[in-house]
């Protein structure tokens, strides 16, 4: 068996259903092996067991693999060539690292004898990816190839998940090897640390300490992050909340980890969180952080985050996240699902039931008084109304992906999120261009689900070549472009902090005809919505179309994202805009320079 065949065998053994990648000289042996594997193992209906989906750009392949991983919980796989193929993959790898998404990326590399010679399509991928992946292997010893590829899957999905890159020189792909079918690299240090974390359990003393603080608290709050989803802990969280009655606010990555339509759900917190979630954080006296890391979009000023909290507890799978940003009074490093199940069982066994009637009434009042709202009388199409209209059809059951910017925040704020793995967004890296390829990957993971890409005009343009990928593969994706003719979020910051000087944010996107672009790429349903009175009927028609559909909506170009906790500001200084009630008149934002971002 050749090295290339060994790679494909391991991938097949790992249960991979689909791969994403773009060919090139240094990866041709693997591509050929994929072709032959699929031909030899064709299903009865003629379909391929491991189709290899081809994007317009390797970055698209990376985000498709990431979208697949986010929607399915399985490892996403991408295969690209050396040099530019691999460097185009850097952004999705870093994006997946920052959001803890499991990927295995196989990169071709020039032959071992040519490494370091500035060969054609050579790039130092082990150096470049080493700085942004969970791990990178450069396979120089062909006898280690099989164990290395298998280990890459283990690394990607274990502990805190992340992307693993395997750089395979062309001569290693061509080497004659015998397939063993089992065996991984030792990685004694990693495995010992992983074992310690995975086996960690909460002692009775740990439970006593946490519940002692919880039972004294009058206003306890759960701050749930992406770890709830990565750890498959949403049901355990639900049971914990049912048992003890703590309200839940979720981070951008945690949306779907707790049903946002629940009376105890406060939806999103942070820079563009709901006013009621942020006020609840201001008011709470106890915080339980679950798979969340106090990042700067949540705790922009760590010292002022949850200022009345007398006790902060944190559960995470990553020891480095404990106390990284904010010191905590109690912590546990271990699998979140098991920790929550243990706490629920302990609390129930000891009949611990916090009396939170007054706090629940307070939370309900916050949700009523400070509800999300916008200019409902405007003649211009309001982006919030578009999301609300789509949400009435989707009802939290569609998979929604986004680009990055205002449309991303509107989608986060105005959609209902009822279950994990229905919300795909570039949370930490904030990569424009994520939405379309991620939606493609998600549709391959969930072929029967409604998948909607809510995108912006500038974001979708970053990977607009993938429109053709949608029609090539006949995916019934629904793509919405909320067009405000430019970089809306950048303009919002320039209005607030740069006296309205729209440096570079209003220069382009005036000529683009997105509907023509979609038609050119084979979309039979491609329309532009420009009138409020056609909103409901257009969206109903769009979502009902049986096939790929593209809807551009010309929105109010001045629509802003509110609430907003400005950079360097506390939640108490949150601006809520003209249509959401603020608790106090906030101080006008300073137009002075800030080092926060």
């Amino acid at each position, binding site marked *: 068996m050749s090295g290339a065949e060994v790679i494909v065998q391991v991938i097949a053994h790992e249960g991979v259903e689909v791969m994403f990648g773009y060919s090139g000289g240094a990866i041709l042996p693997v591509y050929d092996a994929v072709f032959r594997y699929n031909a030899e193992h064709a299903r009865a209906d003629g379909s391929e067991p491991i189709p290899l989906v081809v994007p317009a750009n390797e970055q698209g392949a990376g985000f498709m693999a990431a979208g697949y991983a986010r929607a399915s919980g399985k490892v996403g796989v991408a295969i690209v060539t050396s040099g530019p193929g691999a460097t185009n993959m850097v952004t999705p790898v870093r994006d997946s690292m920052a959001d803890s998404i499991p990927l295995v990326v196989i990169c071709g590399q020039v032959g071992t004898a040519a490494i370091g010679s500035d060969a054609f399509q050579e790039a130092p991928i*082990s*150096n470049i990816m*080493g*700085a942004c992946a*969970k*791990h*990178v*292997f*450069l396979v*120089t010893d062909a006898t280690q190839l099989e164990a290395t590829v298998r280990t890459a899957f283990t*690394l990607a999905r274990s502990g805190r998940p992340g992307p693993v890159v395997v750089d395979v020189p062309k001569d290693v792909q061509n080497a004659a090897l015998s397939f063993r079918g089992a065996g991984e690299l030792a*990685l*004694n*240090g*990693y495995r010992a*640390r992983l074992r310690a974390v995975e086996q960690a359990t909460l002692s009775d003393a740990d439970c006593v300490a946490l519940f002692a603080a919880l039972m004294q608290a009058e206003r306890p709050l759960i701050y749930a992050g992406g770890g709830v989803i990565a750890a498959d802990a949403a049901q355990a969280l639900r049971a914990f909340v049912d048992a003890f009655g703590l309200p839940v606010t979720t981070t951008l990555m945690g949306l779907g980890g707790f049903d946002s339509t629940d009376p105890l759900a406060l939806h999103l917190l942070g820079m563009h969180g709901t006013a009621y979630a942020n006020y609840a954080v201001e008011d709470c006296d106890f915080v339980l952080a679950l798979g969340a890391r106090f990042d700067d979009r949540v705790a922009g000023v760590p010292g002022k985050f949850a200022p009345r909290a007398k006790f902060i507890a944190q559960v995470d799978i*990553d*020891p*480095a996240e404990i*106390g*990284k940003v904010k010191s905590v009074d109690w912590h546990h490093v271990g699998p979140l699902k098991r920790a929550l199940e243990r706490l629920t069982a302990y609390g129930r066994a000891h009949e611990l039931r916090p009396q939170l009637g007054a706090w629940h009434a307070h939370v309900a009042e916050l949700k009523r008084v400070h509800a999300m709202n916008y200019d409902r009388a405007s003649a211009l199409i309001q982006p919030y109304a578009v999301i609300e209209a789509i949400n009435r059809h989707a009802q939290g059951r569609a998979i929604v992906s986004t680009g990055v910017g205002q449309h991303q925040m509107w989608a986060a704020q105005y959609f209902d999120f009822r279950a994990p793995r229905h919300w795909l967004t570039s949370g930490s890296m904030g990569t424009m261009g994520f939405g379309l390829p991620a939606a493609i990957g998600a549709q391959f993971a969930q072929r029967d689900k409604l998948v909607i890409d809510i995108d912006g005009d500038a974001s979708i343009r970053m990977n607009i070549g993938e429109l053709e990928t949608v029609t090539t593969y006949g995916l019934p994706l629904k793509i919405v472009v909320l067009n405000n003719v430019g970089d809306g979020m950048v303009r919002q910051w320039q209005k607030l902090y740069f006296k309205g000087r729209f440096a570079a944010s209003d220069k382009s996107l005036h000529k683009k005809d997105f509907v023509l672009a979609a038609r050119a790429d084979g979309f039979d349903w491609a329309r532009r919505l420009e009138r409020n009175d056609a909103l409901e009927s257009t969206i109903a028609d769009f979502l009902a179309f049986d096939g790929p559909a593209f809807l551009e909506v010309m929105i109010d170009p001045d629509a802003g994202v509110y609430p907003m906790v400005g950079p360097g500001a506390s939640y108490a200084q949150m601006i809520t805009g003209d249509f959401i009630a603020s608790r106090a008149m906030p101080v006008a934002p300073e137009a002075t320079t800030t080092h926060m971002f």
Partner: protein
Amino acid sequence: MNHTLSILLQNEAGALVRVAGLFAARGYNIDTLTVAATHDPAVSRLTLSLQCDDDALGQILQQTRKLVDVLQVAHPANALAA
């Protein structure tokens, strides 16, 4: 405050770069760095000194332990052994 760390590292392609890169990416300046062989040819010992406060030290120890090639990180002076 000056701290000296002792790191046992698997001899893999790019392993040293990943340790040095981690310190650079997280804003820690390495003052001195020595790499030595051990009795096991597959394992090297890095002795590394840097200036940082105690909070930063705790964080850099934890981040270093996340590197897959790292077998062990010790801070002999503090006995903050891995």
